[in-house]
């Protein structure tokens, strides 16, 4: 048999062997056996010396092609087998994706803090500083500086936990107003501050009262602030918290440290003002108290009330959260039942 034919035979049988292989190992063996240094092709090429010189290049090219073809056949088969292996592996690895996961929990911020921080961030965006103030406060700042002298009837509205004759647990975050006003440098621009925090009242705890609760006080003092600014600010707040369609209304009220004073109602976010159980069929829900800073309050902090004016407002995060999420009992906020806490995941 000519060398030429021999090589062609080897090619045919090699490709055939490759195609018939069932395992990777067989292909590897085939590669070593056929194409290796001791393989039949190499061996056959030793007979090259008997080939006439002029035919040698042709035989050489043929030999290379035979090697290439066998190699390709092996590789093709190799790929096919690999695909099968992967497919089998994938099938074997298929799992029940409906089985429960490994828990990987993120904690839930307390709903009151979520409510407070939502409001804080709203005001920070409007250029307000956040100043938490003191929980133990002097009578002076909690009452006197808010135009509530000794014997003022308004002191009846909020019975107070005293520590001494002069010190008390603050009954309102408005207590921070005097401190903010007296320390502000008005040459550097207006005073714009909110004071969030815990306040205390001598109340028996029940569904609507808690001896400890939160408030957020807001205060702007500048040369040009007006009732209209107060209304615009609170309109924006109520729309941020209760929805873009909300309207607000002012009703005259009384706080010793503001004049005029108003109660602020927001149009009912549940019925849109039609009247429902939540708004007691009035279409409006009372949400906060506000007003223009009383001139006495400004003057006591050394601010000329004929030049400067202030807007002040105070709101209750508990009330906001109770309204917004339908919490019926204020005590729920302080029991910290994790089932209660975790339902507020991701609301803010």
């Amino acid at each position, binding site marked *: 048999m000519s060398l030429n034919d021999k090589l062609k035979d080897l090619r045919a049988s090699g490709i055939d062997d490759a195609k018939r292989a069932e395992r990777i190992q067989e292909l590897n063996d085939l590669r070593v056996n056929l194409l290796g240094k001791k393989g039949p092709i190499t061996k056959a090429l030793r007979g090259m010396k008997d080939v006439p010189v002029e035919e040698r290049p042709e035989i050489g090219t043929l030999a290379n092609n035979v090697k290439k073809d066998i190699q390709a056949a092996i590789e093709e088969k190799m790929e096919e087998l690999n695909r099968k292996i992967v497919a089998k592996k994938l099938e074997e690895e298929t799992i029940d994706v409906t089985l*429960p996961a*490994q828990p990987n929990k*993120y*904690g*839930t911020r*307390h709903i*009151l803090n979520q409510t407070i921080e939502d409001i804080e961030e709203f005001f*920070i*965006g409007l*250029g*307000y*500083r*956040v100043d938490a103030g*003191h*929980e*133990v406060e002097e009578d002076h700042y909690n009452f006197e500086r808010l135009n509530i002298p*000794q014997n003022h*009837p308004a002191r*009846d509205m909020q019975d107070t*936990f*005293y*520590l*001494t004759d002069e010190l008390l*647990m603050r009954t309102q975050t408005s207590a921070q107003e005097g401190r903010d006003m007296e320390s502000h440098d008005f040459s550097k*621009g*207006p005073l*714009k501050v909110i004071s969030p925090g815990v306040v*205390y009242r*001598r109340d028996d705890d029940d569904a609507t009262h808690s*001896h*400890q609760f939160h408030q957020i006080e807001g205060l702007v003092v*500048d*040369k040009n602030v*007006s*009732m*209209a600014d107060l*209304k*615009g*600010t*609170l309109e*924006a707040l109520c729309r941020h918290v209760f929805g873009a369609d909300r309207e607000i*209304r*002012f*009703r*005259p*009220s*009384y706080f010793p440290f503001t*004049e*005029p004073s108003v109660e602020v109602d927001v149009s009912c976010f549940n019925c849109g003002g039609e009247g429902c159980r939540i708004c007691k069929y009035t279409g409006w829900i009372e949400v906060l108290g506000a007003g*223009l800073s009383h*001139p006495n309050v400004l003057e006591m902090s050394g601010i000329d009330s004929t030049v400067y*004016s202030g*807007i002040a407002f105070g709101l209750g995060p508990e009330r906001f959260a109770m309204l917004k999420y339908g919490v019926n009992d204020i005590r729920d*906020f*302080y029991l*910290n*039942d*994790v089932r209660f*806490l*975790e339902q507020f995941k991701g609301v803010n």
Partner: protein
Amino acid sequence: MKISVNWLKEYIPVTHTVEEMANKVSLTGIESSPVHNGEGLDKLVVGHITSIKSHPDSDHLNITTVDVGEDEDIQIVCGAPNVANDQYVIVALHGAHLPEGKRIKRGKIRGQESNGMICGLDEIGVPVKYVPAAYQNGIYVFPENITPGTDALEALGLNDDMVDLDITPNRADTLGMHGAAWEIGATYDEKPKFTKPSIDESKVVDSNDLSVNIENKELVPDFLVRTLKNITVGESPLWMQRRLWNQNIQPVNNVIDAANYVMIEYGQPIQAYDLDKLQDKHITVRNARSGEKFSTELNNEDDEENTNTILNQNDLVVAAGDQILGLAGVAGGIDARVTNETKNIVLESAVYEGSVVRKAAQRHDLRGDASNRFEKGVDNGAVSEALVRATQLVDENAHASEISDELVGIETEAKPTVIKGKISHINHLMGLELSSEEIMNIFDRLGFNAELDNDDVTVTIPTRRWDMSIEADLVEEVIRIYGYENLKGTLPTGMETSGGYSPKREFSNKLRNVLLGQGMNEVINFSLMNKKEAEDFNIIGANYTKLLHPMTEDHEYLRTSLIPGLVNNISYNQARNNNDISIFEQARIFDRTEGLDRPDEIEYIAGAISGNIALDSWNTESKKVDFYDVKGIVEELLSFTNIDANFEYHATNKISNLHPGQTAEIIADGQSIGFVGKLHPDYQNEHNVDEAFVFELNVDTLFGMAKKNVQAKTAPKYPSISRDLAILVNKDIESGSIVKDIFNNGGKYLIDVNIFDVYQGVNIKPNHKSLGYHLVFQNPEDTLTDDTVEKAFDGVKASLVQKFNVEIR
């Protein structure tokens, strides 16, 4: 105060429904709600009893025939003890609806036909305590003849529509009908008209029956009296009685009723005394002597007994010698009360300082209509007129033979307040641009006399509006009458400000976020706790701060630690089968410097875990939380503090309610920053909690240390080399000190030491433990050689052998 529309109509025209009025008044002045009396009641008429006979089969029932304005009289069986012939009474006809769904039907009572019911006031909706005493235990009998068949509710005023004003303390001017008429009138641009009261001048005499002395002139700006002689005390006319019971005042007699009526009309309380019962004809207003006793007519609970009140020297009394006539502004005494036998009376119209009245009323639990008004203030321009009005009413109803001149104990001139303002400033504060005409018109509606001089406005405020004193008050009046609904919202303009949290708040927010990220739920607990809780974790040795007058022992002390609250939370949850708990709180604790009253408020952050950290599931086994879980939380938290310090965990057995063998104080740069540990088993039992691990860190201290500047370094590109070290060491040696020693001797290329094995027990020398450490060396600038590492490793081993007597394995 409830404003009767019928009464109001005497002063201003009323064309709106009470719903409309309440809404409008709420938006312009005073929070109000509509009241419809007598709703749901019907077929109640006035009847005239034309005959009466005993029921043949009963010893207490009577058979009456009653003229109810129909063609024929009807027969009604009545069991009231006070029923009698010729009475004008309330009849509920067949089919009548009474309160609480009660319905009257004709029927037979012990065999006798009864075509309705003769009613008492309480049966048609008047609370029994406001029913005149004579009719409390029977039917009501009209004091005058009324056409039979007349609507009884109408005749009794019990279908009056009313507007209920829920006043703020500054608007006590509307605690009288006149003030309310001014307020509602201003809302509707109607000026009220009042008739001036007058006294029959022919009866007036210059009397010297009494003398008056006011000891505390600063507390009693006005004190006026008049005496009336030879009156006939009896029942008041119906028109007066019905106005009283509609105000929740019980009609008593025509003197006391007149006094109460004037209080409602003018807002000025009037007191009446029986002149002949005065032990001394010299009246003094003075402080009580400590221990003096006083019996009031006002009884809070039991109408049968008189309350004996022991006075103290802060109480102001009206006295005749030693005889206490009344607690000034609060309550009249029983001693000189006006009864049906009274002939000669004294009427008092006075003003008492509000806080004295308020405190006395509180002290003796005697708050009432009079004290409510004095507390908030009364119009001192109407004191004398109110006395004239009371005198007039008593005279009209009880017919005096002689009326004294006004006897003045003290009188303070009632001066109108004059407020100066500027139209431009008023507009400026409102954020409006009203014309001066519009503003002047509003003052006029309010009955304020205003004068305009260019931009300056001078407003004279009548004494009835004593709440007004400054320009800001004018602003409020103008804007509320103008209508807040017409005000367009704007945002403050002016210089830009940059808002934000304080750096410390940013820091604590970050810490909270790290704990949230570790799956801990945030809780909020009370700052006030009981004594024991305050003591339980007073680890910092705080001086306690407590309330002067706590409401309960449970909320008496300011907290010295956040842990007791967290333990309560675990206990509450685990009692409800929420067994696996991971919670934290960021809040203040209170520590007082010895000798100071005011405590420091220190921000802390604390956490607690209990139950399982992993649950039994299809692919995991449950694992209970342990010390190293909570320590892991703390380490991660501290890694976010930006503090350039080594945090060391020093075992401590000094914290009484923590496990002595599983607790560490955490030290940074020699400073204690908090602790981490397990609750003491006894404490766990006491609080019904499962094994729980807690930590508490001082946020203020951490914030003070958080100064590390982060300077970026390129991540190392050269490979690291590691060495494992296994040692045998006495079991009491802490791993922390070994790691510290390894670092001290490992050279500058030692970057990490991890412990991978701790073993004690079988095959280990008694009292020893085997520890395995994995040391990592790296030179960020060059490839390390084995030689360099080996040298450093040898140094580490040598030091351990020398210092801790370890065996290298």
